[in-house]
């Protein structure tokens, strides 16, 4: 290994030893965006003030996301010689209590604890790392997230960081590509293109300048994997990009980050400065003569910029329009016409480990066709929302029922949506499927970059399809007709169906239109836009038919197809719905069952939520008969 790196590594470990004072308690607070949204910063402030005021000796650290978003705010304490105890749902008040009881005294507060990590924890608290949430997970890309302080490069180095770069700088460029090819690593952005082949096609062309771009324009609604990696472990991505720069012969890289990710941008800036200071980035890296610099470019809010040619146009200062076909590959002619290597955040992040641990190690995880792990943002109607990492090949149901803890409020599972606006919805009988790039595509969905939204019986599948089409229609760049006009046509039909104007033949028309958009669009946005519609028709055609033929929304979601009605038998005239109704549509007096004036009702659903569950007098009705009755004023 490069001698200079040994010195840096030794120094980092020594500094860390000094900084960390392992003889006093360590407090970790999860301060990624989700933690901060729940109030992590006020917890940090409260504890900091308290430690200072009462002169309690302890170190407090802001870490990234460990993925248990359902349990935010998370506060972990490691007392010397004790395992890490995790507290959940922490508020400034309970944080003070934890300091008083566990740091000052020795009561570990099982009532506030979520559990502990490692061995030898207290008997009245659960062990987390072998429990349901973590036992099926394998954290490779996320291994440092929530564990290390992302703003301290020494911690990253102490956890094996920059070793991959130091090794790479002593390897031949072709050999690095061989390792990547041999490892079977596929791009984590969604399409799963083999990384080794992409890097190779960027090494070959001769050019005075080449570029490396990290695509962190995570635009899928319901996805926050890349953000979490950037916020929790920014150095891993910097290291991966620097290795890429060395491999293809580039001296300049760009982060294309969503402007909506201010914390990720802040942490990246800091990490870049720290890496430069240690000579791991910038000029003459580790004394090898290799120069590589990184710049951050903030995206301005256009989903299509996730497409490589559009992203390049955007950095160049233009509208983010994908280049028309036929177009040269970005690896040959990319940014300012130069060969450009573009990979997703997670792809770059895992490269250093693939190099330092070897191709065989990487291949030992996951499946033959899709080695490694998959990171998912698990959300929707699920008990334990969060950020998870699983070996490829795991069954969908293990993710949903074991890691995710099943469906919220004990409702019935209906579908799982992966791949965001480009993906599809899979029903219950597909839950045995293995999660990998190829299996999900065969079933009509796709891996995507990692959004996984769980849908229960109270969600309308036609409405979900309409939701995604509305998104892609809005985000279509407008350049090619199939995408611009096609998504609009599909959206109009879906609106008709959801609003009771559906006609016989609409389903067939959607299928035909979807097929044409896929075939005729010039970029990935259009080519995948119909997927949410096609997959919901494939698996939930009966719901479409109910909307069209009976004007019925089986999930009782589509506003125009439902009416709110008060069941006289059940109504106790408590008056709650009447007081809550924002449009004064409900009338009734004490002891007189209430009624809803259908002419005034805006179907906001507040009466339905207000009616106490023990009465359940407000009901939603659907179908032609009920709608007609309400319209004629018979219902109330």
């Amino acid at each position: 290994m490069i001698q200079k790196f040994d010195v840096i590594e030794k120094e980092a470990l020594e500094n860390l030893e000094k900084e960390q004072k392992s003889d006093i308690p360590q407090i970790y607070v999860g301060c990624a965006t989700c933690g901060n949204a729940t109030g992590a910063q006020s917890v940090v402030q409260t504890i900091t003030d308290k430690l200072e005021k009462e002169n309690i000796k302890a170190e407090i650290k802001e870490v990234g996301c460990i993925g248990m978003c359902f349990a935010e705010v998370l506060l972990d304490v490691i007392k010397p010689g004790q395992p890490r105890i995790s507290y959940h749902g922490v508020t400034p008040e309970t944080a003070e209590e934890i300091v008083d009881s566990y740091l000052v005294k020795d009561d570990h507060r099982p009532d506030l604890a979520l559990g502990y990590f490692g061995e030898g924890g207290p008997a009245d608290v659960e062990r987390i790392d072998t429990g349901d949430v973590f036992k099926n997970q394998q954290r490779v890309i996320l291994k440092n997230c929530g564990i290390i302080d992302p703003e301290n490069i020494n911690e990253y180095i102490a956890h094996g960081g920059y070793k991959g770069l130091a090794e790479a700088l002593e390897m031949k460029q072709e050999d690095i590509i061989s390792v990547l090819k041999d490892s079977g690593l596929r791009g984590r952005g969604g399409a799963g293109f083999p990384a080794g082949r992409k890097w190779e096609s960027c090494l070959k062309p001769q050019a005075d300048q080449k570029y490396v771009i990290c695509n962190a324009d995570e635009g899928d609604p319901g996805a926050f994997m890349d953000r979490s990696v950037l916020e929790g472990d920014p150095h891993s991505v910097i290291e991966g990009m620097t290795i890429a720069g060395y491999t293809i012969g580039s001296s300049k890289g760009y982060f294309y980050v969503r402007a909506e990710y201010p914390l990720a941008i802040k942490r990246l800036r800091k990490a870049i400065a720290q890496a430069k200071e240690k000579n791991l980035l910038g000029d003459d890296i580790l004394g090898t003569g290799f120069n590589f610099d990184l710049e951050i470019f903030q995206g301005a809010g256009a989903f299509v910029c996730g497409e490589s040619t559009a992203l390049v146009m955007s950095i160049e200062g233009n509208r983010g329009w994908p280049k028309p076909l036929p177009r040269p590959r970005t690896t040959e002619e990319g940014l300012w016409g130069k060969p450009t290597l573009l990979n997703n955040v997670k792809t770059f992040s895992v490269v250093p480990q693939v190099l330092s641990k070897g191709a065989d190690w990487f291949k030992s995880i996951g499946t033959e066709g899709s080695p490694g792990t998959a990171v998912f943002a698990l959300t929707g109607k699920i008990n334990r929302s969060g950020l998870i990492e699983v070996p490829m090949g795991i069954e969908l149901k293990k993710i949903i029922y074991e890691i995710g803890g099943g469906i919220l409020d004990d409702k019935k599972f209906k579908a799982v949506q992966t791949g965001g606006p480009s993906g599809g919805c899979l029903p219950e009988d597909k839950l045995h499927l293995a999660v990998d790039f190829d299996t999900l595509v065969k079933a009509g969905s796709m891996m995507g970059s990692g959004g996984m939204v769980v849908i229960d019986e109270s969600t309308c599948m036609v409405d979900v399809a309409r939701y995604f089409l509305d998104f892609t229609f809005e985000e279509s760049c407008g350049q090619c007709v199939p995408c611009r006009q096609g998504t609009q046509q599909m959206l109009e039909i879906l609106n008709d169906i959801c609003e009771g104007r559906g006609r016989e033949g609409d389903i067939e028309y959607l299928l035909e239109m979807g097929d044409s958009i896929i075939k005729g669009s010039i970029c990935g946005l259009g080519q995948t836009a119909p997927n949410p519609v096609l997959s919901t028709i494939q698996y939930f055609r009966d719901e479409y038919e109910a909307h069209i033929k009976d004007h019925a929304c089986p999930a009782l979601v589509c506003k125009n197809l439902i009416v709110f009605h008060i069941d006289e038998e059940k109504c106790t005239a408590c008056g709650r719905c009447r007081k809550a109704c924002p449009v004064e549509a409900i009338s009734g007096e004490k002891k007189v069952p209430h009624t809803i004036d259908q002419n005034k009702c805006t179907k906001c659903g507040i009466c339905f939520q207000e009616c106490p569950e023990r009465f359940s007098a407000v009901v939603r009705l659907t179908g032609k008969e009920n709608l007609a009755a309400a319209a004629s004023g018979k219902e109330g």
Partner: protein
Amino acid sequence: MQEQTKKVLSGFEGKPNEVIPMLQAVQNEIGYLPEEAIRDIADHIGIPESKVYGTATFYSQFYFSRRGDRSVKVCLGTACHVRGGMQVMDALEREMGIKAGENTPDYKFSLERVNCVGSCALAPVVMVDDDVFGRLVPKQAKEVLEKSDPKV
């Protein structure tokens, strides 16, 4: 050239590829992009105004008219959508008496929909500037606005 714009643009060399960072910087300073600012940016780079405007309107981050003092953003990412984000939006529109994309007449608030603020575990979510309100039901719309009133 407006003083504010001038100050911001002096930090840029004026290369064509700086259009987006310039627009971002000017909007950060002024709050939106008035016509004069677009003209100033075009002059600074030496390209037609239409080119700058064309680029700016492509991206959803940019605003071209004055906005409310506080920005109410209703998340309608997938997780928020399936957990009732739209009903929360309806309730806010009703409470504020405006539609998404508009300002209240007193310019206290602007209301808009956004796609995923990444706090999916708290769905449905509303952000008022940097304050996050999570796990909302429609009737809490009033409370969100009262808590966020710039006067309070």
